[in-house]
Every structure is written in structure tokens, then in C-alpha cells.
């Protein structure tokens, strides 16, 4: 089994993030606070800090690995950047100028900016102004027709991908004079104007969530609420888009564990593995806990997976030949809404990751022994 540690922290967890050395986790137990827990030994978690500043539920937390700052955003339309000062976390208010809830947040790879998606159909890019000693927010107001559910930074620290409940995934440039240095390789000046939309992907009919870039920044993956996952290779003027439909309940978040392999988590409470084969075609491979079934490119393979066995159980007349009898031993009991990598930022492969969900558990998964099983795409 790939799970290394599972711990139930609260009734329900909205979001979580790890400290730079992965010893502490910051999470929101579905209330207005951010709790920081430290693990002393296996399954011994001690609550160190409670960060209380927000008036409404904290919808996004991110912990920067180099500068050790926590950014939290909330439905109260505010965001705070927390810095560790003498053992206590000190908040700095960042005025986002939003008139609706903030939904998601992510530090940029260089950690000099962070992006916030909101229900006000805008994305806020915040950067630190040294002279005035405070965080300034620049808004991308155009283009989005509905709430921005998820944001993801490209490794080059300038491009930002967003997904929205209007079903579209967009890529913007967030070039800010004075913060980002002009790189002659990065493209023409016209392309690098702040808020300029580089690409819009119209693949989904329903709400889109969970966008992520692959480690090299060449591929994008995001999910739609219609049990579809979308992969876009060669993001740029002529992208190669693929829509993969899968059997079960929709996903909420994805993570690239290598250039050609993606883990999706969602309402099935069980992480799913997707991979691209040698010709570049993406497909569903297996659930993370299962034995690998006969490989097939079609997502509607005729194998009787445990997924249907669980719903039809004893009523199913057809004999479930292989491993339906083996208990799946699911880790999460409810929707998993967040998946966070636990490897060094910028490394091409992710060996460990954690998931948190509405059941209040955080599970840590390790892929160390699974390289054989996962195949050569990992």
C-alpha cells in the first residue's frame, strides 16, 4: 500500500500546506482558523499554533519553502501573509480589493508573488513592495466569466493558469515591471504584458477545477465536473488537447508526479493514476491501491473494477473474476479535495504527496516502492 501515514485532525479539512522541511502541516479545520501541527513521531501530532485573524472560512493556504511564509486567503475577501517572528506567527494584511470571496492561493515558484483566485471573477497577483514595506495586489479583471476555482504557476514564474466555473482554463502572463526581470528568451514584449491572456481552453461543459502544470511546464492538466480530465501538451500557440472520460465520480484536484504521470483525487475518495503512453495519449491507468489490471487505452475497459462492485455488490450477476474480493482498504471516507506534493520543489519526480479531504483526514502517500508497479512513465 502506498499510504505511509493517516491522521484525522478535524471533522473536515478545507485545505492544507506543509512547512519547508515537511515536519509541520498548516490546515484549516473548516472554520476561520489555521492550525499548525507538528509531528513528533509516527501518528503523534501536536498542535503548535492557531492562527486566528480571518472572519470567515479559510479557503486556501500555501507555505513557501524558501522564505518560510504562510499565505492564507478566506471567504472574508482578505488574505494574510504570516511570518515567523520569535516563535510566533505574525500576520500582515494584504488588501486584495475583492468584493467576493477568495477561493484559492498559490505562491509563485520564486516566492516573490502569489496568486489568488476569487468569486469576483478576478485573479489577484500580489507582490511585495520593498520601499513601502507592504504587499500590493494587481487584479486581472478581464476574461473570466465566473468564479476562479484554481490557480497554478508555470515554472517560469510569469505564466499563470486558472480554471473557472465557466468551464474554461486560461493562461495569463503576470509579468510585473520591477518584480520580474525581462528575460530575452521569454518571448516578445507584447506577450509579457501583465494580464494578457495567452491561451483559453474551452474543453469542458461543466465547472473546471484543479489545474496544474507538469514539472517542465510543457503540459497542463485540469479536471471538469463531468468526470473528465483534460490534458494539454505543448501549451502555446498550437496546443494538443485531450479529453479523457473516466468511469467514476468527478475529480477535484490533480498532481503531476512525473512528466507523464498524473494523480487525480476527488469524490471517489481514492486517488486515480493517469499516464501518457509513448505516443502521448493520456488514459486512466488504475486506482492507486489496486493491482494493475490489463492495460487498455479505452477508459471504458470491460474489466469489472471494484468501483462498480461496490455499488452493485451482491446483486451483480456477473462473476467478478479477479481481485474484487480483496478489500480495497480505502484511506479516505469522503471527498478528497486537495493533493499537495511533498518533494523538493522543482524536482522532476514527486515521490511523496499528501491528500486531505472532507473526512478531516490528512494522508501521506509514498511512491518509493511503487516505481515497478507504476511503470516506465513514472
Amino acid at each position: 500500500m502506498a499510504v505511509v501515514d493517516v491522521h484525522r485532525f478535524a471533522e473536515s479539512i478545507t485545505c492544507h500546506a506543509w512547512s519547508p522541511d515537511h515536519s509541520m502541516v498548516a490546515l484549516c479545520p473548516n472554520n476561520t482558523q489555521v492550525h499548525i501541527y507538528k509531528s513528533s513521531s509516527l501518528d503523534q501530532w501536536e498542535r503548535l499554533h492557531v492562527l486566528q485573524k480571518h472572519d470567515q472560512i479559510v479557503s486556501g493556504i500555501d507555505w513557501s519553502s524558501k522564505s518560510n511564509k504562510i499565505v492564507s486567503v478566506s471567504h472574508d475577501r482578505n488574505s494574510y501573509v504570516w511570518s515567523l517572528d520569535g516563535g510566533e506567527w505574525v500576520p500582515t494584511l494584504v488588501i486584495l480589493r475583492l468584493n467576493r470571496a477568495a477561493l484559492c492561493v498559490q505562491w509563485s515558484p520564486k516566492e516573490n508573488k502569489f496568486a489568488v483566485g476569487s468569486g469576483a471573477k478576478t485573479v489577484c497577483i500580489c507582490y511585495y513592495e520593498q520601499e513601502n514595506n507592504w504587499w500590493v495586489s494587481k487584479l486581472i479583471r478581464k476574461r473570466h466569466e465566473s468564479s476562479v476555482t484554481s490557480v497554478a504557476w508555470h515554472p517560469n514564474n510569469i505564466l499563470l493558469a486558472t480554471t473557472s466555473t465557466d468551464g474554461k482554463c486560461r493562461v495569463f502572463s503576470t509579468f510585473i515591471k520591477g518584480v520580474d526581470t525581462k528575460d530575452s528568451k521569454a518571448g516578445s514584449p507584447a506577450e509579457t504584458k501583465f494580464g494578457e491572456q495567452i491561451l483559453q481552453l474551452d474543453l469542458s461543459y461543466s465547472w473546471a477545477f484543479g489545474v496544474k502544470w507538469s514539472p517542465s511546464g510543457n503540459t497542463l492538466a485540469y479536471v471538469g465536473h463531468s468526470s473528465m480530465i483534460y490534458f494539454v501538451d505543448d501549451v502555446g500557440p498550437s496546443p494538443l488537447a485531450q479529453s479523457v472520460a473516466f468511469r467514476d465520480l468527478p475529480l477535484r484536484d490533480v498532481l503531476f508526479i512525473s512528466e507523464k504521470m498524473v494523480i487525480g483525487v476527488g469524490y471517489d475518495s481514492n486517488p486515480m493514476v493517469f499516464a501518457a503512453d509513448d505516443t502521448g495519449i493520456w488514459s486512466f491507468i488504475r486506482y492507486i491501491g489496486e493491482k494493475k489490471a490489463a492495460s487498455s487505452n479505452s477508459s471504458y475497459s470491460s474489466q469489472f473494477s471494484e468501483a462498480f462492485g461496490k455499488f452493485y455488490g451482491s446483486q451483480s450477476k456477473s462473476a467478478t473474476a479477479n481481485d474484487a474480493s480483496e478489500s480495497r482498504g480505502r484511506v479516505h471516507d469522503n471527498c478528497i479535495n486537495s493533493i499537495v506534493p511533498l518533494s523538493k520543489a522543482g524536482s522532476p519526480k514527486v515521490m511523496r504527496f499528501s491528500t486531505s479531504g472532507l473526512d478531516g483526514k490528512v494522508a501521506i502517500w509514498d511512491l518509493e516502492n511503487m516505481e515497478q508497479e507504476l511503470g516506465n512513465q513514472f
Partner: protein
Amino acid sequence: MAGAAALVEADNANEIMARIETKSQKIESLLKHYKHVEALKTALDGSPLTTYDERCKSANWIVVHRAIMAIKDIDGMLNSLAAEYYDILMKYLYRGLSTGNEPTCEQCLIIHEKLIERAGLGCILRCLSDTNSV
């Protein structure tokens, strides 16, 4: 602007109606020869998903309904139906269930159960969330 679009729609609609007419005749002949699966595939092919015209959708529904009701061997039918038809078939099953007509609902429910075994809950999700209706 809107007028021009409406005009295009109307032309399109007539084309679609004509196509459905031809489809209907083809299906009748296929059913006479007991080629139920072929009939269903023909009925599902070229379904007018993107048009706004209700007549086209109803006309296509009548044709698909005919093919669905004629099926006796459901397992066999699903065995030979390619995966790309699952989503569109599910949409028509829901349309059938919404009619409230007893024999239609019965047939649709039976096919629904078996289709879920093969296609999974994702199929229902795609059917419910898709803005293009049948």
C-alpha cells in the same frame, strides 16, 4: 445579427429534419431484418445536440425511442456497442425516463442499470452536466 443566426438555424433545422427522415427509413428496414444494434447505432449517430430547434430533437427522439423499444437482448446490445455511444445513449435513456410512459420507462430503466455497470457513474455525470441536451 440575431436575425441572421435565426435564419441559419432554420436552414440547418430543415436539413436536420431531412436527415432524420432518411435515418428513420433506414432504421425501419434494419429492424425488419432484426439488426437491432445497427438500428440503435444509426439512430444515435448524428444526434442533433447543438441545435436549438425542438422539432429536430423530438424527431430524433422518436427514432431513437423506436430503436430502444425494439431491443430484447440488452446484454448483447451493450456488448457490441462501442464506448463512444455510452454517453449519448445515457442522455436518451433519461429523456425516455422523463416521459413517464410505463413501457418506455421500464425498458429505459433496465438498460440504465446495465449501462451503469459498464460505463460507471461518470456517464451519468457527463449526461447531467452537459449543456447540449437531446
